[in-house]
Structure formats: C-alpha cells, structure tokens
C-alpha cells in the first residue's frame, strides 16, 4: 500500500491509462476468466444458493422438490430454535475470547521473540508448529489429552494432589466450550505470533534508536513507537481472528460434535447439522445466511478501508 510515485508522473500515467482503459480490460479478460469462472461457479454461486434455499423447505433428497415457504425458516430460527441461540451465543463467546486471549498471548510472544536470544528460532518453531497441524488432528490429540481416566490433564492434576479439580473436561456442559477453546489457543497462537513478528520487522529501527537516545524506556517506546507502527498488523490480525472464529468447525466436530447438550454448538456446525444430519436444507440455509450476513458486515467495511489505501 506504500508505493511512492511523484504526483506529476501519476497524472501523466493516469491520462494515458484513461485512453487505454477499454483495451486494458479486453487484454485482462483471458487472465481473469479462469479464476472468475471457478470462483463464481464453486464459491459465489453456492453461497447465493444458500440464501435462496433459506426461503424453501427441502430435505435435500433429489426425489423431493423444494417448496417455497417465504420467511418461515427465519421465523422458526429466531423464535422456535433454541439450538440456534445456543450456537449464536457460543460463536459470540468464541469471537470475544479469541480477541482477548490468543491475540494478547501472540503479541506478547512476538514482542519477546523479536529480541535476539539463544534458541530464538527453536522457540518460534515450538509455538508455530501446532498451527501447521490440521484442526481435526488437533481435535483428536486434545480429545485424548482430556480423556477422563487416561488423559494427561486429569493424571497431572492427580499427581499434584488436585484430584478434586479433575473432571469430564469435554463431558461437562458448563466447561466443554472452554476446554475446546484451550485447544484452539494452543493451535492458534503461533500463526498470529508470526503475523506480529512480520509486523515488528516493519517498525523503523531508527525511530526506536532515536527514542532511546531521548531517554525513552521500554513501555514508552512500545506505546509511542512500536504500537503506531504495528497498527496495520493489528487490523489484519483482528479481522483474521474474527473470521477464523466464525469459521470454527473442525475442532468442535472432532472434540465434541457440538455436545454435550448443544453446549459447544456453533453457527457453522449448526448450519451443517441442519442440512446434512437433520435433512433440512432450508433451515441450514437460514443459519448459513445469518453467518454470511454477520461476516459481510465485518468484512466489507474492512475491505473498503483496505482498498481505499490502494489509491495512487
């Protein structure tokens, strides 16, 4: 976003470009077409079709024709579907917790690991490696770690004399969601840490040096030099965190399947369950549409802002 071109040169280019706009578009078509076709047919179309299906009642079986029911699915979703509200609540909790815990942790790790120190690359790898594991694999690992009798967590608690703390980590509706979230922290911190590390590389060294010469200390440097320079990184991490929180699916499927008693149900999984397990593509489409609207409300302002910066 930070390309520098002199204003005069920009003007000259712009007028030249204006005359050639038509040609440029025709020249661009062959390069755009393959991606546009794939993207349109296998991403945009299914998404819009989810919205369309949300106004129909349909079992998903080919033998049955979808029946148009207007807004019935939405009425039922908002007034008669307790699972939807549980899923909605859990998705919100998940987004808020993700913005608080793993984001803070990853920023702290990045700040610490931005210093030169012995074993820095090893540390970075240890924190990053869980991020390259498939979420479904992480789910299988943690289901084992949480195993009530043979799993690590309860055995450690017993070994240090805290038997009373041991419990059914994934079987207790009050804490199951948070147990799954711990696995998500373990997996997710490394990725954001790397983003923050990349952002820290863009903090101008001269500014830090100048601030030090002026007698600024660690916290002051952080507030007045590092933080402002990290702002674009923050925006990226923030938006990526929100999006990935709304997408949470694999971990829940692999660890609890949404249970016990819907206590770990989330929107993405409820949409899937309604369509494929309950054979109710209309209800599934309605949940998907809600999720789509939430995502777009968050993403479109961000993109508009990000792309405005692209102006030359």
């Amino acid at each position, binding site marked *: *976003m930070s390309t520098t*071109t002199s204003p005069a040169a920009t003007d000259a280019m712009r007028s030249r470009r204006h005359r050639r*706009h038509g040609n*440029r578009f025709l020249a*661009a078509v062959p*390069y*755009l077409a*393959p*991606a546009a076709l*794939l*993207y349109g*047919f*296998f*991403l*945009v*179309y*299914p998404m819009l079709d*989810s919205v369309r299906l949300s106004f129909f009642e349909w079992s998903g079986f080919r033998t049955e024709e979808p029946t148009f029911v207007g807004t019935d699915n939405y009425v039922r979703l908002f007034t008669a579907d307790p699972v939807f509200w549980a899923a909605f609540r859990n998705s919100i909790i998940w987004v808020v917790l993700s913005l608080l815990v793993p984001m803070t942790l990853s920023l702290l790790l990045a700040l610490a690991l931005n*210093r*030169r*120190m*012995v074993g820095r690359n*090893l540390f970075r790898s*240890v924190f990053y*490696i869980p991020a*390259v*594991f*498939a*979420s479904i*694999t992480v789910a*299988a*690992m943690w*289901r*084992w770690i949480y195993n009530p009798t043979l*799993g*690590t967590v309860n055995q450690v608690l017993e*070994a240090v004399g805290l038997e009373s703390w041991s419990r059914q980590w994934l079987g207790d509706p009050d804490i199951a969601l948070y147990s799954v979230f711990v696995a998500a922290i373990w997996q997710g911190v490394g990725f954001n840490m*790397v*983003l923050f590390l*990349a952002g820290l590389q863009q903090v101008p060294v001269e500014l830090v040096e100048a601030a030090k010469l002026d007698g600024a200390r660690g916290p002051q440097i952080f507030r007045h030099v590092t933080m402002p320079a990290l702002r*674009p990184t923050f925006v990226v991490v923030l938006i990526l965190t929100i999006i990935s929180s709304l*997408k949470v*699916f*694999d971990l829940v499927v*692999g660890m609890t399947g949404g249970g016990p008693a819907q206590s770990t149900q989330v929107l*993405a999984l409820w*949409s*899937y369950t309604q*369509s494929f397990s309950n054979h109710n593509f209309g209800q599934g*489409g309605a949940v*998907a*549409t809600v*999720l789509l609207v939430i*995502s*777009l409300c968050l*993403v479109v302002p*961000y*993109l508009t802002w990000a*792309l405005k910066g*692209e102006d030359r």
Partner: protein
Amino acid sequence: MATATLTRVPTGTASATRRPRDWVGIGLWIALAISAIAWATPFVFMFLTSVKSKADVSQLSTWDLPTVWLWQNYADAVQTGDLWVTGGNSLLIALVKVPLGLLVASATAFALGRLRFRRSKLVLGLFAVGSMVPIQVALGPLFNTMLSLDLLDSRAGLLLPYLAFGIPYQVFMLYGFFKAIPDELDESARIDGASTFRVYWQICLPLARPALAALFILDFVATWNEYAMATTLLQSQSNWTIPLAVQGFSSQHATDYGALNAFIILSAVPVLIVYLMFQRYFVQGAFSGAVKG
C-alpha cells in the same frame, strides 16, 4: 551451562553501556522456556502414548516411559487406517491443486495489479470478499452442485471447490506483489515488443517468486489439512483424504490409544517436513506481504 549461554544475550544497543548481566533478558528467556515446554508437552505425551501397549496405556501415567517400546503401533496404524490410500489421495489433490491454483490466481492478480483497467479495484474487492466468508456457508449447495455434475465422491469434485476457495486469498496476496513492480519495467519491455503474456510470464512471475514459494507452502498445508469440504463431498473410504482418515480412525478405533496416537503423528509428517524445509519463507515471504496489504 545454561547461565554460561545466557550471559551472551546482547543488551540490544551497541551504544548502551553494557551491564554485567541483562536480568530482564534472562527472566524473559526463562519465561519463554517454560512456555515452550508447556507448548510442546502435548507432542511429548502423544509420542509416548504412540509407543505404548494397551496394558501400559491403562496402567502407567502418560509421562511414564513404556515398559516395552511398541513400534508395531505405527505399522498397525498404517494398515488399519489405510494410510497409503488416504495419503496418496491427499498428496495427489495437493500436488494438482496447489500449482494449478497459483497459476490461475497469479494470472488474475497480474490482470488486476498490472493491467489496471477501470473498476479493477472493485473486481479485486469482489474476489477478496470470498477469502473472508466462512466456507460452511456454501457447503449445502456445493453438495447439490457436485451431485448434479456427477462429481460427488470423486477427487475431481473436491479439486474444483478447493481451487475456487484458494483463489481469493492468493489473488489478494499476489496483487500486492505485482502492483509493487515498477511501471518502467514492463513499459520498457513493451517498447521492446513484449506481449502481455511475456510481461506476465517472464517479468512478473519471476519477480514474485518469493511470494509464490510462500503461498505454495501455505496452500499445501491448508489443502492437506482441509476437513469441512472433504467430509461433505467425499463418501467412500477409498476416496478419503488424510483429515477424514484421522477423524475416522479416532472414532472407530478410539480405544486403541497406541495406534490412534501413532496414526495422528503419521498424518502430520508431510506438513511437518514441508514446514521444516521451507521454514524461512513463513516469516519472510507471505506474511510480510500480508501485513503490507
């Protein structure tokens, strides 16, 4: 030993008068070491369990060494989980999908970043939105589409949506790299008579090599790990990919803990190899681009 290495931690600035010991640095290092150990423990316990017999698993604590190192668990896991078949499927899909996806996405990023036609930014925005919407929103209709195209439960039927869902993110990232190329470069090439295709193929693509390498790794890992779409579109076990195999194994053989943990470890070996081989690109290539925009 540890303290001897610790004193070598530099204080940061050359101009600062060197204090005898950087206590903040040492404290930080210890805190990091403890966190790193905590972060690595799940792997250690996974591994220990993967070489234990059923008797050892139920009688010993998770941190105890096995009485017999049962490497046979790995062989059993490969066989029971059909690892060669599912691994082959995953590898085939990744090796077709990743290069093809990068080719298609880079062509689009080139068109948007270098040919700059009117409304190109709007088109970029339309592409970018797709990388930010939950995949699950489209799963139901995607299933129907594949059913009507007769591509359900086939590797090709998984490949096409994988391509579609990889494109937006890659276009967004590569756009930044292509746009940063100085105008003089391709203008002079054009004056020398180069076609648009040559500008794309011989100037822009080679310049974007670091970004392409980083995206290749990221996309390989993401494709290898994808679960939601695969579980929707694939049915027969012979078409399964690795994540489906892991999920299948952990629900079917949930009590065979040794083999289960061995299978989990084996399933992640390829991504670990890819990660370790191309580690440096993770921080430098793609992510610095991501942060810039």
